């Protein structure tokens, strides 16, 4: 028995050492998550417009085209519960936050990062945002959440080729030049990926949105909900009832709350095929268009509010 244990340990030791050495090396590599967390740590008290959400926001909102101090705090596949966690993490710092802008897309109310195909990103919130999403070992480790092949490439790329893997701009916009993909093909695959039969997360999502609204009203922050523009090949492949449920839910929420507005830009006619990198993500041109459009809509709300205030005085 002792011989068995001894030999097994000796056999596994090189592997253990290899993995243990990898973990700190990987954690030391800069990434979008620790960059954004550091940015918020230092600047959250100065931000007046905060954009949260998933890849639709990450690639779709460029704060360079938004007036005032704005920041894009989104990440790929960041679900609504994580938006709320980020908001809560700096809850005492949002001194200047006037507008919190949250996308309500086709999948927003029904999906969570952990249950989607990008579930391996959960570790980023545990490790780099210090938001304790889970106690699972695999979700608290770089080595255990990404395959060795990719990890070796990441280490080589950073430590040998000196490539920094941060893919967002200073203000959080995912400004990498994404290669355009086939709009018909991606329309089908993305719609399939985003369509669900499981609506069990809906009530929890509504609760989270209500808590965000509640927090915002106490903090004197206005919430802007919007639906990101998508190309027709995506829209036409969606499940009508899931889409209708999303729209009805958000409409009801806006009707019942005074400190929020909703803009449906889903099928906005100002966005053409040339504005998309794939059927549900905008490219740099599209992002500029969307950012300017939202900025204008927010300015209009701001003007309206000032007028209302002046009239009521």
């Amino acid at each position, binding site marked *: 028995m002792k011989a068995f244990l001894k030999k097994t340990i000796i*056999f596994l030791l090189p592997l253990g050492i290899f993995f243990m050495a990898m973990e700190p090396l990987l954690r030391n590599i800069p990434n979008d998550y620790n960059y954004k967390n550091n940015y918020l740590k230092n600047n959250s008290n100065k931000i007046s417009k905060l954009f949260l959400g998933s890849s639709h926001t990450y690639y779709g909102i460029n704060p360079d085209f938004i007036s005032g101090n704005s920041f894009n705090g989104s990440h790929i596949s960041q679900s609504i519960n994580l938006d709320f966690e980020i908001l809560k993490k700096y809850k005492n710092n949002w001194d200047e936050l006037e507008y919190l802008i949250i996308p309500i897309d086709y999948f927003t109310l029904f999906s969570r990062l952990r249950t989607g195909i990008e579930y391996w990103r959960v570790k980023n919130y545990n490790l780099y945002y210090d938001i304790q999403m889970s106690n699972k070992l695999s979700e608290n480790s770089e080595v255990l959440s990404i395959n060795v092949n990719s990890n070796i490439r990441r280490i080589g790329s950073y430590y040998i080729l000196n490539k920094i893997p941060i893919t967002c701009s200073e203000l959080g916009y995912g400004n990498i030049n994404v290669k355009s993909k086939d709009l018909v093909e991606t329309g089908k695959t993305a719609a399939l990926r985003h369509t669900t039969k499981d609506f069990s997360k809906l009530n929890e999502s509504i609760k989270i949105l209500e808590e965000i609204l509640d927090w915002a009203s106490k903090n004197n922050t206005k919430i802007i909900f919007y639906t990101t523009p998508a190309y027709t090949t995506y829209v036409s492949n969606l499940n009508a009832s899931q889409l209708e449920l999303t729209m009805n839910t958000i409409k009801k929420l806006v009707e019942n709350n005074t400190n929020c507005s909703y803009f449906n830009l889903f099928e906005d006619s100002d966005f053409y095929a040339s504005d998309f990198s794939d059927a549900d993500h905008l490219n740099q041109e599209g992002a500029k268009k969307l950012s300017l459009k939202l900025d204008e809509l927010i300015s209009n709300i701001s003007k309206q509010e000032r007028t209302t205030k002046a009239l009521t005085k």
Partner: protein
Amino acid sequence: MLFNSIDFAIFLPIVFFIYWFIANKNLKLQNLLVVLASYVFYGWWDWRFLSLIIFSTLVDYIVGQKLRTENNEFKRKILLWTSILVNLGFLGFFKYYNFFLDNFVTAFSFFGTEIQANSLNIILPVGISFYTFQTLSYTIDVYKRKLEPTKDFLAFTAFVSFFPQLVAGPIERATNLLPQFYKKRTFDYSRAVDGLRQILWGLFKKIVIADNSAQIANEIFNNSADYSGSTLVLGAIFFTFQIYCDFSGYSDIAIGTSRLFGFNLMQNFAFPYFSRDIAEFWRRWHISLSTWFRDYLYIPIGGSRGGTSMKVRNTFVIFIVSGFWHGANWTFIVWGALNALYFLPLLLLNRNRTNTDTVAQGKYLPNLKEFYQIGITFSLTVLAWIFFRAENIGHAFSYLATIFSKSLFEIPHFVGMQTAIYTLFLIAIFIIIEWIGRNEQYAIAKLGFTSKKSVRYAIYYSIILAIFLFMGQQQQFIYFQF
């Protein structure tokens, strides 16, 4: 708990350590540890379903005890049917309720009668088909007086819930596994090393071959309307390797884990894709289920005795029931019926036991005839797997229609071609290793007693390296849904 998870990588050494270092002096303590570990292992998914296992255990234990003293045949039958009804009742409710309801509604509406019936949102308890059959085998064997009912409740509970094979087999017979819980287990170095080796091979099959093949098969099957016939053939071949490596990989890990604890489980797969006819395939595929159906269904209804019509009926019954066991969908029933059609000519011509030895025994390669037979059997199997994998019958037929169209001769093209190319390369290496080790319990078993230590270690590390470098996106074991 999944075998290919970090949770299990932590769970296994802890249980192993307690089992051999703390509980090793006392058999009862060891059995108690097996039960507790098994309940933790199972409860990791959903602890609520533990109540089903506990209830089944209690029912079958009590029925066993009553059968011990009962000599009245009628009362014995009632006891047997109590166990069958309870176990199959659970299985029927959780697995087949919605299927039967939907089909009744459809059937009535076909005759013009509309019935209002709502299907239930039922979660299928993991492994219910496996442990139900295992515990049923105990009661039936006791009823038939082939097995002495156990008085040791702890040993019986450990037998029903033994964690390595609880959720996806091998479906053990009480005659093989239960007595192992009565005897004191002593640690055997070579058996433990052999267990680890089989676990490693199982992990390779699952993580490298099955998970990578799954990615491609899923892409092609989910978007089959967009692809050419040649691509769909590739999709079916990838699924063929996915299901084999997924399921036999699970069995290897289960058998290997059992060896670590001093238990011997039955071989569940014996290189089925090297079979020369369908009868041989079914002697080598999911052996524990095939023999279960043979002993508890096929033989009791007459087996291959009687006239031709009886043989045909019995063959269809066993294959269709076996198909239906896999899931509440017509696709599984058709898959079973198709296999019955493949099998029937061999049975009727009395050629179902022609190939009972290992192919090309003592030779490096098969001869031309064997190669041809293997090719034909493999092709028939691939064809049948299309029904098994399809969403519904319509999907299966449209899949087949595309295969047998002009587009069969187009160059395959699909999303994920790069993964497919290296997966094909890995499958080729895998087939070579399986071919070399086809006489053993599992492909790399021979390594334990023929090679030098340095060679062995180099091979083990190569396998581990391959697992880490080529691991596919983690997929749940297919057979969990059954």
